[in-house]
C-alpha cells in the first residue's frame, strides 16, 4: 500500500514535470533563428516546396498554436516528421532507442559491478598500493571527459592492439537477430545464436567502458569512503565481537549499509551516462538515440530535438524513481520517512 502511494505521488509529479519539460523543449526547439524547412530542403529546393513543408509543420502559425498542434499529436503518439531522416520521429526512436538503452544499461552494469567492486577492494586494502592505485585510477576516471576517454580507448584497443571492433553494433555479414527486445545481445541469445551474441558483446565493450568510466570511478570512490567509514562503526565491532561470521559482517551488515550512498548517486551517474552517450555514440558510430539527437541538434531538426529530449526525460525520471525505490529497500529509515510523509 505504501509503495502504491509512493508510486502514485511520483507518477503525478512526473506528469507535471513532463508537461513543463515539453513546454521548455518546445520553446528551445522552435525559437530558433532561421527556417528549419529551408534548412532541411537545401538551397536549391524551389520556394513552393519549402512553403509546403512549412505549412505541413504549421511553422507559419503563432508559437502557442504550434505547441497546441505538437502536444495534441504527441499525446496520440505522433511526434511529427524528422527533417533529417524524413520519416516519423517515432519510427526513428523505435529504431534507435534500443541501441542506446542496450549501451547505457551495459555501461550501468559495468559501473555498478566495477565501481562497487573496486570500492570494496580499495576499502579492504586501505592505504596499501592497491588502494592507492585504485584511487588514482578513479580520480583520473572522474576528471577525464568521456569523449577524451572514448578517443583514447578507440586508439589503444581498437587501432593499436586491435582487440575490439570500433564501429557499429555488429560486424558486417553477421545477420541481425530478430527483434524481441531490440538488444542484440539478448535477442541473439534468445534465438540461440551465440556467435552473434558474442559479436554484439564485443561491439558493446569499448563504447560501454568509455561511457562507464566516469560513473564507475565516482561509484568506486563513494563506496570506498562509506565502507571505510562504516568499518570503524560500533555495530561492526559488535558484530565481530559477538562472533558473527566475517562473511555476514562484511556482506550483510557492512555492504548493505555502505551501498546506500552508492545507489543514491546512481541516478546522477545515469544522467552523466545519458549525456556522455551523446559524444561516445558519435565517436563509435553507435546507431543510438543520442547520436541521432546530436545530429538533430546540429541540423536544427526541430521535431527530432523535442522528441529525443522528451524520451530521455521520461527515461531519466523512471530511473530516478527506481533509484528511490532501491534506496528505500536498502535503508529502513528512508522507508519510514517516506511512509510518514504519505
Amino acid at each position: 500500500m505504501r509503495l502504491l502511494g509512493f508510486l502514485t505521488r511520483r507518477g503525478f509529479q512526473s506528469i507535471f514535470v513532463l508537461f513543463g519539460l515539453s513546454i521548455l523543449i518546445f520553446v528551445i526547439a522552435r525559437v530558433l533563428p532561421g527556417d528549419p524547412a529551408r534548412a532541411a530542403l537545401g538551397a536549391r529546393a524551389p520556394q513552393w516546396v519549402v512553403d509546403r513543408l512549412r505549412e505541413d509543420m504549421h511553422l507559419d502559425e503563432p508559437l502557442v498554436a504550434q505547441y497546441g498542434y505538437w502536444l495534441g499529436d504527441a499525446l496520440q503518439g505522433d511526434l511529427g516528421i524528422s527533417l533529417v531522416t524524413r520519416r516519423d520521429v517515432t519510427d526513428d526512436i523505435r529504431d534507435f532507442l534500443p541501441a542506446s538503452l542496450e549501451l547505457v544499461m551495459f555501461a550501468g552494469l559495468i559501473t555498478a559491478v566495477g565501481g562497487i567492486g573496486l570500492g570494496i577492494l580499495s576499502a579492504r586494502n586501505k592505504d596499501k598500493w592497491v588502494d592507492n592505485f585504485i584511487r588514482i585510477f578513479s580520480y583520473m576516471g572522474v576528471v577525464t571527459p568521456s569523449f577524451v576517454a572514448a578517443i583514447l580507448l578507440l586508439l589503444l584497443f581498437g587501432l593499436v592492439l586491435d582487440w575490439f571492433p570500433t564501429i557499429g553494433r555488429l560486424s558486417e555479414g553477421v545477420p541481425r537477430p530478430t527483434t524481441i527486445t531490440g538488444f542484440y545481445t539478448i535477442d541473439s541469445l534468445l534465438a540461440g545464436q551465440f556467435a552473434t551474441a558474442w559479436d554484439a558483446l564485443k561491439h558493446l565493450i569499448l563504447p560501454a567502458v568509455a561511457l562507464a568510466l566516469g560513473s564507475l570511478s565516482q561509484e568506486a570512490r563513494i563506496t570506498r569512503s562509506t565502507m571505510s567509514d562504516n568499518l570503524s562503526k560500533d555495530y561492526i565491532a559488535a558484530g565481530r565481537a559477538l562472533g558473527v561470521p566475517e562473511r555476514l559482517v562484511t556482506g550483510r551488515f557492512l555492504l548493505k549499509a555502505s551501498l546506500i550512498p552508492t545507489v543514491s548517486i546512481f541516478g546522477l551517474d545515469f544522467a552523466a551516462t545519458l549525456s556522455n552517450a551523446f559524444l561516445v555514440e558519435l565517436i563509435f558510430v553507435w546507431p543510438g538515440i543520442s547520436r541521432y539527437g546530436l545530429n538533430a541538434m546540429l541540423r536544427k531538426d526541430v521535431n527530432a530535438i523535442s522528441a529525443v529530449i522528451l524520451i530521455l526525460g521520461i527515461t531519466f525520471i523512471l530511473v530516478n524513481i527506481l533509484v528511490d525505490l532501491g534506496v528505500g529497500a536498502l535503508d529502513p529509515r528512508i522507508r519510514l520517512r517516506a511512509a510518514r510523509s504519505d
Partner: protein
Amino acid sequence: MAREITAGELPGPITREQVKQLQRKNRRENLGRSWYKFSRNPLSVIGGATILVIVLVAVFAPWVAPFPEHAKPFTDFANASKPPSAQHLFGTDEIGRDILSRVIFGFRFSLTMGIVVLTLVVPTGVVLGLLAGYYQGSWLDTIIMRITDIFLAVPSLILALAIAAVLEPNLFNAMVAVSLMWWPWYTRLSYGLASTLRNEFYVTSAETLGAGKLHILFREILPNMTSPIFTKMSLDMGWVIIIGATLSFVGLGVQPPRPGLGTMMASGAKYLPDQWWIAVFPALGIVVVVLGFNLLGDGLRDLFSAEGV
C-alpha cells in the same frame, strides 16, 4: 572551541569596537586552523597549487607563452604538424602554430567559462533556493521548486547542447546555454540547507526578536550555507569546464582560430593517430584543470565536514 573570556579582559561593558576586534581575531584563528588542516592534505595542496599555477599562467599568458602570437590568427605552413621538440615542447598544429602557447591561451577560455557561468548561476540559484527553503510549504516554494524539477528532468549537458545548437555558436552563447541549465543545482542545494537551517535556534530567536526577513535570510541563514556552496563551486568549476570543452568539441563553443581546448581537440582528432600531439596536449590540458579543481574541491569538502558543517 569557544574561548573563555576572563573578567580581566573585560573591564566594562564591551564596546562595538571590541566585539569587532574579537570577531576579527576569531576569524583569523579559524582561518589559520583551516589552512593548517588544509595543508595537511597533500592532494588538496597539489590541487590548489595546480589551479594557482594555471590561473597565473592564463592571466600572464602573453608573457608566459613561448609564442603568444600563435594564439591569434597566424600561419607558418613551413612548420606545420611538427612533433614535440625543444623549440615546440608540445609540437605544432596543422597550421604551424605552437601548441603549448595555444594550450596556455586555451586555459583562458576554460577559466572564463567556469567563472562566468558560476558567477551567473550561483547567486541566482542560491537566492531562489534560499527563498523556497525558508518559505517551505508556501506557494513560493512550490513554484520555484517545481520549475527546478523541470530543469533537472533532463541531464544538463543534453539541454545545454540543444540550447547552444539553436544559438549562434560562440563562447558567449555556450556560457548562456550552460548557465541556463546549471542554476537549478544550486537552488536544490541551498533549498535543502535553508529548509534545515530555518529551524535552528539562532534563526528562530532572531525571528522572535523581530528581525527583518532580509536580515534573517541573508545575515543569519546565508552565512551558514557558504561552506557546502563553496565546495560545490570548486567541484563545479571542473564540470563546467568539461561541458564547455564538450560543446567546443562538437563545434558549439569557442570558434577557431581561437584556441579553445575542446576546439583544438576537435580539429586535432582529424589528425589522429599520427599527429597525436595536436589532439592529446589540449586533452591533457582539460584533464589537468579539471583534476586541479576536483582535488581542491575534495580538500575543501573534507575540511568543512571536519568542522561539522
